[in-house]
């Protein structure tokens, strides 16, 4: 991949459509060196198609609004430089395909917020002092998960949601990350293992790591969230040795 900054004439194929139907539409424009896909889309919106719908906000890869599928891969439009894409072929820009389309590049991601409401939030352990203190090692482990910007590209690329449409049985990688951040919090007082195994459906994940590959924040979703959660479920449900040694329960945590 060349890091040389190049501008020049480029062709984009942008998905235009509504809730029912849509198609890729060709656009051409002259680009400047260092432009990102979002720049090109906004330029087309400003100069050619004022009704082109696109969701964006910070343009700094921190708000998670401009998620799209660029050349077939989920990526943030504001973080994908044109000169990092093949120059000899058109750039396709499509909405996230795991979510219902609203219009053009805008999708309805409200399902994620409904899932989020199902997760019991941080609940401090009984008997904690008013001032919450935790060590740096614990902070480091949990803070990786707090980097999530909720772009939902991990949800988009997860084949359980995208291809098999098991939204009723699986919360998706983003919420495995949230569950991990709570389950590994040293001051939290809830044991969410049954929720993780049953309602959240961690067993449906077959660890193909696509969520990790697309995460713009570089969160090791599979290795640091999903696999540890699977192992915690295995501790309680599939490990007879731990049962023999009566290590089943988790001290200081109430089952939810």
């Amino acid at each position, binding site marked *: 991949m060349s890091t040389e900054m190049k501008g020049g004439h480029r062709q984009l194929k942008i998905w235009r459509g509504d809730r029912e139907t849509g198609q890729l539409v060709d656009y051409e424009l002259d680009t400047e060196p260092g432009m990102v896909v979002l720049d090109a889309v906004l330029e087309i919106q400003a100069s050619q198609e004022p009704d082109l719908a696109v969701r964006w906000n910070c343009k700094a890869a921190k708000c998670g609004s401009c998620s799209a599928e660029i050349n077939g891969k989920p990526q943030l439009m504001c973080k994908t430089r044109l000169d990092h894409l093949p120059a000899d072929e058109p750039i396709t820009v499509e909405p996230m395909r795991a979510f219902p389309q609203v219009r053009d590049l805008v999708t309805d991601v409200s399902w994620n917020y409904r899932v989020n409401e199902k997760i019991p939030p941080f609940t401090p352990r009984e008997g904690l002092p008013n001032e919450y203190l935790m060590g740096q090692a614990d902070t480091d482990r949990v803070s990786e998960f707090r980097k999530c910007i909720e772009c939902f590209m991990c949800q988009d690329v997860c084949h359980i949601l995208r*291809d098999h449409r098991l939204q009723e049985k699986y919360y998706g990688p983003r919420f495995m990350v949230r569950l991990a951040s709570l389950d590994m919090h040293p001051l939290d007082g809830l044991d969410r293992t049954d929720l993780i195994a049953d309602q959240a459906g961690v067993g449906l994940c077959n*660890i193909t790591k696509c969520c990790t590959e697309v995460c713009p924040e570089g969160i090791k979703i599979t290795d640091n969230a999903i696999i540890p959660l699977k192992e915690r479920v295995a501790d309680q449900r599939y490990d007879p040795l731990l049962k023999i040694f009566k290590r089943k329960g988790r001290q200081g945590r109430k089952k939810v």
Partner: protein
Amino acid sequence: MSTTSEALKPSPAYGEPRKAGATARRDRWWVQPFLVVAALTTFGIYTIVRVILSTKYPGVYTDGAHLQSPMFSPDLAGIFGFHTKLPWSFLVLWAPLGMRTTCYYYRKSIYRSYFLAPPACAVAGAARRKYSGETKMLLFMNLHRFFFYAAAIVVGFLAFDFVRSLFYATAGGGTSFGVSIGSLIMLINVVCLSGYTFGCNSFRHLIGGNLDCFDCSASTRTRHTLWQRVTTLNVRHQEWAWLSMFTVWGTDLYLWLAGSGVFTDPHHIF
């Protein structure tokens, strides 16, 4: 000015049926699954055929040194006096092969490459009526930690095999220290297998990942340090997995050829 594009196919839209391989990706996403199938299938066939055909494998003896292939370790006959006409190394091989089959990295590779579930990211997988992930038939994947325990013991025997390969029986009944290319290859194999085995996700969990608090006592702080060490190996688990698979393969092939008289294992006795 805009025109409707027809040359490139878009991804299946939300709600549309997805046929296997449907994607808007234009890169060569199929190369990796193809290579994985080719490598794992070849390794699997080689291992099974080799182990079945070599039921009497005694090890390689060069000037009194004993070099044991990793596919036939531990030396059940030599160490435990266990003799059978059956392909006895299957009595041990289930452990490392089971560990690899249930390994989190190999699961990714196998699901992607053999089951096409999915073959690559944002590429529609093979059609399945009811996807159940690892909740039904594949529930046994949760037993990975037990295969790890067994495989770790096998790695211990491989380390023993390496040490044993450094001692040469002399004519007077004593032993001398020596080094051969074969023993160095065995050392590389043990190092790579250790890197793979002790970077296992289950081991990472058991050594410290299962703690809710890293910084609550002296023992949890010690386990956190160990967890960090295992994590260092774990971030390269994929690389260790492939590397160790090829070193097992290469070590066996080398010792097989040396034991068959194709060449003499170059060595120096001190």
